[in-house]
C-alpha cells in the first residue's frame, strides 16, 4: 500500500465556519473538519477514490479522515481544517510560547483506516495514555 511523506498545514475554512455556527454536532461541521485536502498528484500516488478514507500520521498520533482534492496545493503538502480530528496529530509542546505547532508538520498519509465519529473522538479523550 502506498504511503507518502507530506508536510501538514492546518487552518480555517469558510465551510468550517458555517458548520460550527450551525453547531459542532451538525453534519455541516463534521463534514468540514473530518477531512484533509490533497493535491491531485498525491491523490493519484495514493490510489484513492472518492469516498475512500485516508490515515494521516505524525510522530505524535494518527487519525483517519475523508479527503477532497485541492489544486492549490503542491505535491507533498496537505491541508487539514482545524477541529477534533486534526487535533489527534498535533503535539502539545509549545516551546515556551503557549502555542503548539499546527502548521508545517512532517506527516505521512496512506489509504485506509476507520473514520471515528465525533462522539467516539470525544470518548477517546477519556482513555488513559
Amino acid at each position, binding site marked *: 500500500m502506498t504511503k507518502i511523506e507530506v*508536510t501538514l*498545514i*492546518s*487552518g*480555517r*475554512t*469558510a465551510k468550517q*465556519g*458555517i*458548520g460550527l*455556527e*450551525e*453547531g*459542532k*454536532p*451538525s453534519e455541516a461541521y463534521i463534514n468540514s473538519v473530518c477531512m484533509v485536502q490533497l493535491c491531485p498528484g498525491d491523490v493519484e500516488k495514493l490510489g484513492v477514490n472518492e469516498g475512500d478514507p485516508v490515515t494521516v500520521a505524525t510522530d*505524535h*498520533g494518527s487519525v483517519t479522515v475523508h479527503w477532497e482534492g*485541492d*489544486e*492549490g*496545493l*503542491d505535491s507533498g*503538502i496537505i*491541508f487539514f481544517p*482545524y*477541529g*477534533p480530528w486534526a*487535533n*489527534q496529530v*498535533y*503535539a*502539545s*509542546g*509549545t*516551546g*515556551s*510560547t*503557549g*502555542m*503548539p*505547532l*499546527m*502548521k*508545517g508538520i512532517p506527516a505521512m498519509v496512506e489509504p485506509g483506516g476507520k473514520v471515528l465519529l*465525533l*462522539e467516539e*473522538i*470525544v470518548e477517546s*479523550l*477519556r*482513555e488513559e495514555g
Partner: protein
Amino acid sequence: MEKVDVVCPFCGCLCDDLVVTVDGGHVTDIKNGCVVSRSKFMNHGKHRVSSATAHNEKKNIQEAVDAAIKILSHSKRPLIYGLSSTECGAISKAIEIAEVTGGVVDNTASVCHGPTILALQQVGESKASLGEIMNRADMVVFWGANPTEAHLRHITRYSVMPKGMYVEGRKARKVVVVDVRKTRTARMADKFIQIQPNGDYEVLQTMRALVRGEEIDVDEVAGIPIDELKALVTEMSEAKFGAVFFGLGLTQSEGRHMNIDAAVGLVSEMNRKTKFVLTPMRGHYNVAGANTVFTWQTGHPYAVDFSRGYPRYNPGEFTAVDLLASGEVDAALIIASDPAATFPVDAAKHLAKIPVVTLEQKKTPTTMLSEVVIPVATAGIEADGTAYRMDGVALRLSKLVEPPEGVFSDEHILDLILNGLKEAAK
C-alpha cells in the same frame, strides 16, 4: 422589523453594517453578512444546550451555578479559559473569578496570535485602523493569511476592493499574497509568492536586508528566487502607503513569535522608505477585546496567574495548552470556547480528568466532557455588550432577540459564580 448597523459577532472584522430582520422574537433574515455571519444569525437556535446540567443531571440555573461554585472553591489551581467569543463585561468578571480563586486565566489568543503579542511587546508595532488602511493603502500584503476563508468580507469591506478617500479601489491597489499554498486569496492577488513551509523567518529577514541595500549571496531563500524578493521589496518601497496583514501562517509555524519579530522588523525597515503598517488578522470576534480587558485589569494580555494573590504573566507556563498538557490544573471554567475540539489531544485529554464547568450556547465536545454545563445567551444576538475589532476599534454588540426562557448572559452567570465564590471565601 429591520435592525440596521448591526455588528456581526463572528470574526475580528466585526462588520457593523448588517441589516437583521426580526419577526416574532426570531431572526428571520440577514443582509450584508458573509456566509458565516448568515449561518451564525440564522442558526443560533440550533443545537442549543437545552438545560443546565451538573453531573449528568438536569438542574435549574441556580443549582448548576452552586455546583460550579463548589468545584471552583475546592480547586487548588483552576484554569479559567476561553473568553474571545463573548463580550467585554463577561471577560472582566472571569478575570475577577481567577483572582478570587487564585487561579490562572487565559484567553484563546494563546493559540492564535499569542506569539504576535509576544513579539509586539518586544519590538513595538506600526499600526493603523482598518478605516485608515481603506482610505490610504495602495499596497496590501497578506502574509500567511487567507481572508477569503477566515475573514470573508475583509477584502471587500476594508482592505482591497473599497474606494477610499485617497485610493480608487481595487485597480489602484497592488495586492500581494505570500503563502505556502495557492489559496483563494492568492488567486485574486496581483502577485503570489509561494514560500516553503516554515521558511517565513528566513524570507522576512532576507527582505529586511534587501531594504537596507545589502547584497545576498544565495540564489533563493525558502524556495523563492532572490530576484523575486528584490522585485517585491522594490514594489513595496514604491508604495505610498502599504499594509501588511498577517495570519496564523506566521504564528503557528516554526519560529512563531520570532516570525512576527521579523515581520515587524521588515515593516520598520519599510518605514525608512515609505509608510507601512502591520495588522494581525484576529480570528475570534472579541479576542482583541479579551487582550484589552485582561490588560486593563491585570496589566497583561493573556496567560495570567493569580496563585500568589497578584497577577503574574508567563506565556508557555500560564497558557492553557501548557497547563493542561502538564496536568497542572485541577479544575477548569470554560467560557465561550471549545478547547476539547481545538487543543492538541494531550491537552484536551486532561479536560476529561478534571471537573470542568462550561458556559456555552451550543453542544460541543467540551460540553460533552463537562461536569457542569450552563446554557448562556449568544452575545451580539441575545445579549448586548462591547467587542474590539482586529485593529482595536471598540464596537457595540446588539441584543436583537430574547434568549430562551431562563437563559442569561455570560456576564450574568459569571457574576452569580463570582458572588458565590466571595461568599464561600468568607
